[in-house]
């Protein structure tokens, strides 16, 4: 009995020693020489492997960053400027600071504003729905409401609001990786500058139909009336194809356009709540709360 135990221990120990030597030798013999900076960069990366930078994952990004002559084309949206500064320090490069971004939903066609014209009976996927037809509302541009964006978000920053049928962005969790932008077959999601103290103004609609058609399909559609364009002192608003767009690099957040918009398609979020002055401002204030939720 004791013999068996002793022998077992001896044999196992011997085997272990032998195999570890073999492994050691193999590791030495077949070692792949890699730039040690890749490991260093990978350590400072967020490690989400989300692909938001355009590379397959954090290590692929690190590999590309080491090989690149500068960091102009390599930017980690998840880590933002802090991470990029560390990466630049490791590589000895300059880094251009970028304004932090956040995903916004450019559709505010809620269930009330945008009545359903048909009942979609297929698999719950925006991509399938979009391949089939223009959507179950009269608006062929807006959100389809099946939540492909929310499914694509790795950070849990997107949820579908059953009351509105639209996705809601949690700006604290959103890393601007762009997965939702790629996932949305309608191009409803957009990455925009987060703005000072998270305040931003944007057109929450991408309907390019003529005003009357758009209005008929959705009460809160941009009808391309151009009032916002006229009132904007910064020249930040362009109206093309019956649709207004606010250039966030020019916008000074004066909110004049928000008050001017007849359909409430322009959203201003995260502005401090002011006591309501007139009834005309009320819809905008409500919208803001929607987005904060």
């Amino acid at each position, binding site marked *: 009995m004791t013999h068996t135990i002793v022998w077992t221990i001896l044999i196992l120990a011997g085997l272990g020693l032998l195999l570890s030597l073999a492994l050691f030798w193999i590791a030495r013999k077949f070692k792949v020489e890699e730039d040690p900076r890749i490991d260093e960069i990978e350590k400072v990366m967020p490690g989400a492997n989300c692909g938001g930078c355009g590379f397959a994952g954090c290590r692929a990004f690190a590999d590309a960053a080491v090989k690149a002559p500068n960091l102009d084309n390599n930017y980690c949206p998840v880590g933002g400027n802090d991470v990029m500064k560390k990466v630049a320090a490791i590589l000895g490069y300059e880094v251009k600071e970028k304004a932090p971004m956040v995903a916004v939903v450019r559709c505010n066609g809620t269930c009330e504003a945008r009545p359903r014209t048909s009942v979609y009976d297929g698999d719950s996927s925006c991509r*399938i729905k979009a391949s089939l037809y223009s959507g179950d509302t009269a608006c*062929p541009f807006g959100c389809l409401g099946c939540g492909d964006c929310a499914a694509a978000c790795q950070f849990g920053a997107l949820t579908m609001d059953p009351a509105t049928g639209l996705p809601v962005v949690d700006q604290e969790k959103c890393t601007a990786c762009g997965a939702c932008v790629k996932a949305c077959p309608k191009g409803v999601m957009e990455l925009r500058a987060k703005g000072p103290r998270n305040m931003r103004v944007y057109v929450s609609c991408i309907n390019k139909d003529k005003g009357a058609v758009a209005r008929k399909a959705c009460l809160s559609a941009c009808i391309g009336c151009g009032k916002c364009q006229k009132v904007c002192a910064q020249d930040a608003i362009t109206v093309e194809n019956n649709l207004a767009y606010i250039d966030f690099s020019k916008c000074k957040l004066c909110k004049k356009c928000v008050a001017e918009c007849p359909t409430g398609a322009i959203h201003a979020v995260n502005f401090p709540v002011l006591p309501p002055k007139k009834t005309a401002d009320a819809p905008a204030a409500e919208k803001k709360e929607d987005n904060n939720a």
Partner: protein
Amino acid sequence: MRKITFGIGGVHPDDAKISRGCAIEILPLPETVYVSMAQHLGAPANPVVAVGDSVKVGQVIAEPAGFISAFVHSPVSGTVKSIAPRKDMMGNNVMHVEIAVEGDEWAEGIDLSSTLVKEIPSDRAAILDRIKACGIVGLGGATFPTHVKLNPGPDAHPECLIVNGAECEPYLTSDFRIMVERPAEIVVGAAIMKKVLGDCRCVIGIEENKPEAISSISKAVAELGYEGIEVVKLKKKYPQGGEKQLIDAVMKRQVASGGLPISVGAVVQNVATALAVYEAVQKNKPLISNVLTVTGDCLPADRQHNYLYRIGIPLSYIAQYAGGVPKDAAKLVSGGPMMGRSIVNLDATTVKGSSSILYLSQKATKRHAPESCIRCGRCADACPMGLEPFHLYRLAKAGDMEQLEANSVQDCISCGCCQYSCPGFLPLLDNINIAKGKVLGIIKARK
């Protein structure tokens, strides 16, 4: 007569040809028609009329905008009111020519008599030109321009023209009615196409559930006495009318993955196309009308119809004329229940390839909530392409494009057999179709 069929898969849905006894009626014209510029596979046609122009029936109103494209002719006489985008059946904007109907004056040179013209012109190129000029497209569903298909190029060797009278989709009876009512014209049309293809063999395939059509077409073939045309009886099995399946059934040859029918020497044309070819070549009549079935499981038998319609007529007008949409209709389908498309917008207008307005009840069409795959293998048994839909479904959900291609998702013909037979009610085809689109895009980009 021997029954033939294709080798792999297939399902046997209830054929529900409720409207088989309804003779073709001529649908009266509405006050306004909207003629779509995208009535065919390929590039939408370019309008050649202007607002305010007066047009006659059969006059060209749009020209092809590319090699795979087709002429569009005015289905009515009247005045062009507008040329503007309008929502099609799926709710997408497509350019339409709006014409206010005034009288019914036909363009010159169109033979409106019903006398049968048996003699086939001898000039092959002239026939093809006429088919092209008359805007003929395949009426079996794909609306592929017929002149392109009948001209497979100098290297091709067409051996067999298969005229498709299978009409394997449940409910539809438009092909059946024209086979019963206008067999001689169909046979002449087939003979014309056979001639264009260099006098190859010609087989007219009809499913066994249409004995009247088999006898009427056989009689016409015997009476007209063209050489090399035969009628074959096909087994009742869906998708018997699928191009690759029909070739397999008739010629016992399988079109290779990614290949065209001509690669095995086959050209398939629908019976309705044969009729359109006859009218174009022998009567100089462009393709402005076709037969459409108004049917459905929730439509009483006495309200079922087969209409000879002109293109550009709003579907809502046809529905009204036929007595309105039945109350318990839950889904409106254009085409058959297996491969047709849901009608999203009833204000859309008829096109060359419209074959039905199908009213399906909640009970017949509402999808059950998906359950889980129980690995029964029914989808794989049903797939006429020998694919494994349960596996493709899983891969599609995971987005594994490499494996999808390795498992031949691109061979899928979207016939719907898998989803039809899935006891777990899984949306197999919904997902496979998307994956197929992506994989085909990848394959195309690689070339």
